[in-house]
C-alpha cells in the first residue's frame, strides 16, 4: 500500500520542552508521554485530549519533543505547564519552541555548558556539595551563594 502523500497528511506541530526535575536520571520517554497525556485528560477531558493527538516523539537528556495537531499548540503548552510530578519527583516542563518539524524544534536546543563568562549558574552533577541548610533535602543555589558561604 502506498504511503499517504504529504498534502493529505494531518498537519502537526512539534514542541520542544526542557525538563527540569529533582530526579537523578532522566525518566523514560513513556513516562513523559503519560504525564502530559494525563494532564491533557484532566484539563480538556478525553474528547479534547483525543483531538490533540499528543505523542512524545523524541527525548534525549533534559529535552523532549512533544507532537500535537496543528491548532492545538496553545492547549498542549498548557498541558505541559501543569505537569508537576514525574516518577514521584517534582518536575517542570518548560516549553522552549514550537515548530512544524522535529528537526526545526531540535534546532532550538541550546548547549548547557556552563563557564565563568556566561550565566552566573553553577552545575555540580555527580560532585559532592555540602548542603547549606544541614538537612538532607535538595538545595538550589547559585555560585554566588557558594562563594558567600
Amino acid at each position, binding site marked *: 500500500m502506498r504511503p499517504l502523500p504529504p498534502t493529505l497528511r494531518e498537519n502537526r506541530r512539534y514542541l520542544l520542552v526542557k525538563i*527540569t526535575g529533582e530526579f537523578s536520571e532522566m525518566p523514560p520517554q513513556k513516562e513523559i508521554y503519560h504525564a502530559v497525556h494525563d494532564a491533557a485528560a484532566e484539563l480538556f477531558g478525553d474528547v479534547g485530549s483525543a483531538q490533540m493527538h499528543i505523542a512524545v516523539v523524541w527525548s534525549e537528556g533534559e529535552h523532549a519533543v512533544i507532537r500535537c495537531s496543528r491548532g492545538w499548540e496553545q492547549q498542549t*503548552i498548557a498541558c505541559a*505547564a*501543569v505537569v508537576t510530578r514525574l516518577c514521584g519527583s*517534582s518536575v517542570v516542563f518548560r516549553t522552549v519552541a514550537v515548530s512544524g518539524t522535529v528537526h526545526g524544534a531540535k534546532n532550538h536546543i541550546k548547549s548547557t555548558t556552563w563557564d565563568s563568562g556566561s550565566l552566573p*549558574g553553577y552545575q555540580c552533577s555527580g560532585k559532592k556539595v555540602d548542603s547549606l541548610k544541614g538537612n538532607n533535602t*535538595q538545595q*538550589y543555589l547559585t555560585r554566588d*551563594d557558594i562563594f558567600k558561604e
Partner: protein
Amino acid sequence: MITDACIFVNQDGSATPRRMLLTAKSCGISRVVVCGNASDIPASYAGVTVLRGKVIGRQNGRQFLDAVRKIPAGCVVLVNAGENSFNRTAITTKGVHLLTGITDLPKGGFDHVVAKMAADHNTGVVFDLSRIINPKSRRTALSRYAEVHLLQRKYHFPLVISSGTDTIFGFRNTTEIVALCSLFGMTRSEVYAALNGLDAVLAPPQLVTVVEKERT
C-alpha cells in the same frame, strides 16, 4: 517590564533567594515582588529587580488598618480577599496595592461594585497561577478567574499575574503563562498587559501631566 506580582522566598525554603531570581530570569521575568521571611534578598540579581511585598490576611477593620499602617514605605501591599464588605474596605484603604486570593472568595465576594471601586482606586487584582497548576484548586480558580476577567473587561481595573511559588519549579515562562491564561479566556495582549500591569498600580497615571515645559 514583565513582573511576577508575588513569589515567596522563605528562610527554610529549598532555594536561595538568588537561585529564585535566576530562575525567574530564565523564564523571561524582569521584576518580582518578593514576600516571605528570607533575609539577605538582593535588590537586584541577574537583571531581575526585586520589590519587597507584604501579604495581609483577613482581619477585622481596626487590626487591618493597623497592619497596613505598620508596613514600611516602598513595600507592595497585598491583601487576601475575603467577604464582600472586607474587600470594599481593603480596596478603598490608602496604601493597599493588590487584592489577592480571589479563588478563596465566598460567593458574591467580588461583584461589580467591588470591581468599580478597584478601578476608581487603582487597586490591582492578582491572578495566582499556582492555583491553576494545582489540580485541587484548578476548577475553582478557572471559573473564578473567568468571572473576574469579565468584570475587568467592563470596568478596566488593573490586573496582575503572579506565580505564587515558593520553589523554583513553580515559575512559568511567558509562553506558558499565555497558554495557562487562555484557559479562562484571556487573549495574548491581555496577558502581556497584565504582566506589565504593576506599573499602573504603583505609579498611576495622573489627571494632568506636564508633557513638555514651555520655554520662555
